[in-house]
């Protein structure tokens, strides 16, 4: 800031200002505190199984945002990874009786394994074509799950998935305690997502999102980066789907069905694309809404969620999180400009008089 008499120069230079940087750090810590607190008290406020649902969907939405918000790929087939992992987690838990984190790990590995060929064939396409190819593959997974009765139970789903956790009965039988065990797994997944976004790899992903030809001209193999992002995203979706399965104790066919892929995109959009944490808000909104509506006997849940989606897309393009962020920034800038004016008030007036002469 070479010219202190120009308050208009303040907002865009905030990023360089150490005071503003400290302010941002404080804001981040406050938000983190609120997030942790909310996650800890959630099962006290709402029915614990519903709280566990929110956790699982929150990570699922984050996995979608990793692709949609940070790589620029709209996957319309993420149910394949969430649901695929749900089945494998369930099968491992039923047949081997291992502690549930191990079963979930198995589901996650399965999700990433099927994501390799699916991703390999779909990242060559972009935009609507990418969405359609992922949808087509997810429907293939659905078809297999529907037909392979011996393994998946077909339309009856997979019943009786046990919660095994090193013989600790509090976690195995009490959904309230289970929530906290699940929270640990979900937080690990979210931290992993955050790390990916804020890694050298994440930088390249945003570059590809913003201008993929440019990224290639800088020597980056765009398809390779997209594929890795796709597989990582599938892993997080798989982790989320595994937690969901253990929490519910069964797997239904709808976990691999296309409305599930749509629902998670809906959550991501409502929360805010490219915000990483917005998906958690979107998940909370949708899960709570569905829970309230279905317990009140209302049949048309889709009408309500659809209406919310339309409102968000039309009025709040950056979703709940993104809109809140905008609001914060505006207030912060206004305050910074006012403080700057107060500080330079006298000299600014003096300059104006000088200019006038």
């Amino acid at each position, binding site marked *: 800031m070479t010219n202190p008499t120009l308050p208009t120069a303040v907002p*865009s*230079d905030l*990023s*360089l200002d150490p005071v503003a940087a400290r302010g941002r750090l404080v804001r981040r810590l406050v938000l983190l505190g609120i997030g942790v607190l909310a996650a800890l008290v959630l099962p006290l406020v709402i029915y614990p199984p519903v709280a566990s649902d929110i956790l699982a969907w929150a990570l699922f939405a984050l996995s979608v945002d990793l692709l949609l918000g940070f790589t620029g790929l709209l996957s319309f087939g993420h149910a394949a990874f969430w649901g695929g992992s749900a089945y494998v987690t369930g099968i491992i838990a039923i047949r081997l009786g291992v502690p549930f984190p191990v079963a979930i790990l198995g589901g996650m590995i399965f999700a990433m394994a099927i994501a390799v060929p699916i991703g390999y064939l779909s990242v060559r396409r972009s935009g609507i074509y990418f969405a359609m190819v992922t949808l087509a593959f997810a429907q293939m997974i659905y078809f297999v799950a529907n037909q392979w009765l011996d393994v998946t139970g077909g339309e009856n789903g997979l019943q009786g998935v046990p919660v095994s956790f090193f013989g600790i009965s509090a976690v195995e039988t009490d959904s309230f305690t289970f929530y906290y065990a699940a929270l640990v797994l979900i937080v690990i997944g979210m931290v992993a997502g955050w*790390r*990916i976004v*804020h*890694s*050298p*790899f*994440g*930088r*390249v992903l*945003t*570059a590809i999102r*913003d*201008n993929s*030809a*440019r990224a*290639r*001209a*800088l*020597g*980056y*193999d*765009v398809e390779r*980066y997209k594929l*890795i992002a796709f597989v*990582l995203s599938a892993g997080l979706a798989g982790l989320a789907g595994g937690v969901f399965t253990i929490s519910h104790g069964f797997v239904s066919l709808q976990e691999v069905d296309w409305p599930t892929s749509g629902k998670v995109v809906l959550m991501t959009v409502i929360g805010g694309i490219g915000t990483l944490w917005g998906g958690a808000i979107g998940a909370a909104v949708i899960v709570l809404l569905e829970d309230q509506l279905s317990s009140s006997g209302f049949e048309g849940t889709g009408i309500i969620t659809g209406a919310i989606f339309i409102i968000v897309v039309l009025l709040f393009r950056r979703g709940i999180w993104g809109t809140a962020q905008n609001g914060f920034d505006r207030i912060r800038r206004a305050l910074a400009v006012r403080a700057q004016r107060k500080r330079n008030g006298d000299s600014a007036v003096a300059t104006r008089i000088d200019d006038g002469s």
Partner: protein
Amino acid sequence: MSATVSVDHLLTTRSLTKNFRGFTAVRSVDLDIRRGGIHALVGPNGAGKTTLFNLLTGFLKPTSGSITFDGRDITGLQPEDIVHIGIARSFQITSLFDNMTALEHLQLALSSPTGVSLRFWRSERRLDRFRARSLELLDQVGMADLANREVGHYAYGQKRAVELALAVALDPKLLLLDEPTAGMSLEDVDRTIELVLRIATGRTVVFVDHNMRVVGELADRVTVLQQGEILVEGTYDEVRQDEKVITAYLGQAHA
């Protein structure tokens, strides 16, 4: 062509042709780029200059013909591979990441050959080791002061300067500049000429430009293209006085 490939040619194309659905954008071009020189490609709009650039950098696949770079056949390679072999380009239309700072752009370019970018489990602070070199490169184009500002806020000329720094950051043997002075004010043009001369030391440069003053001041060889074919090649003065060039640019009546 003689069997012995002359060693002082860094880049050679033979019968390079590109068809788009029956329209021939580049027709049987034999180009020889001398090592260490500054070579201009000129010609009216639609002469095939940008298509030729896209062929040389792998963004388009030739219909037929071959491209040899530094003794190696690079025909049909992917853009990202060609970069690592030593050809970097700037774009005709400013092509940057608006939400990134200039520093982040340079870090992205410098980390490209190192493989550090695949490490999704590392902190982005890993990129700090490219900071000093990034600032040095930005300083070279006079942009060090704005290094921490998002390029979306930059003026046009400043963006072009970052483009140049990016291309140099890849440390290419051959630098392809697509209209480096397009749309610039007179003083920016002067500054860019100076910049290109500075970054050209120890490299080979091929550039496209419509500004004949830029061509005259920078180029030691000029190739004139017309309708996808090479019309004339020579020094700037030779080309300027060539009958065919005058006809192509000014029309039959003035010849």
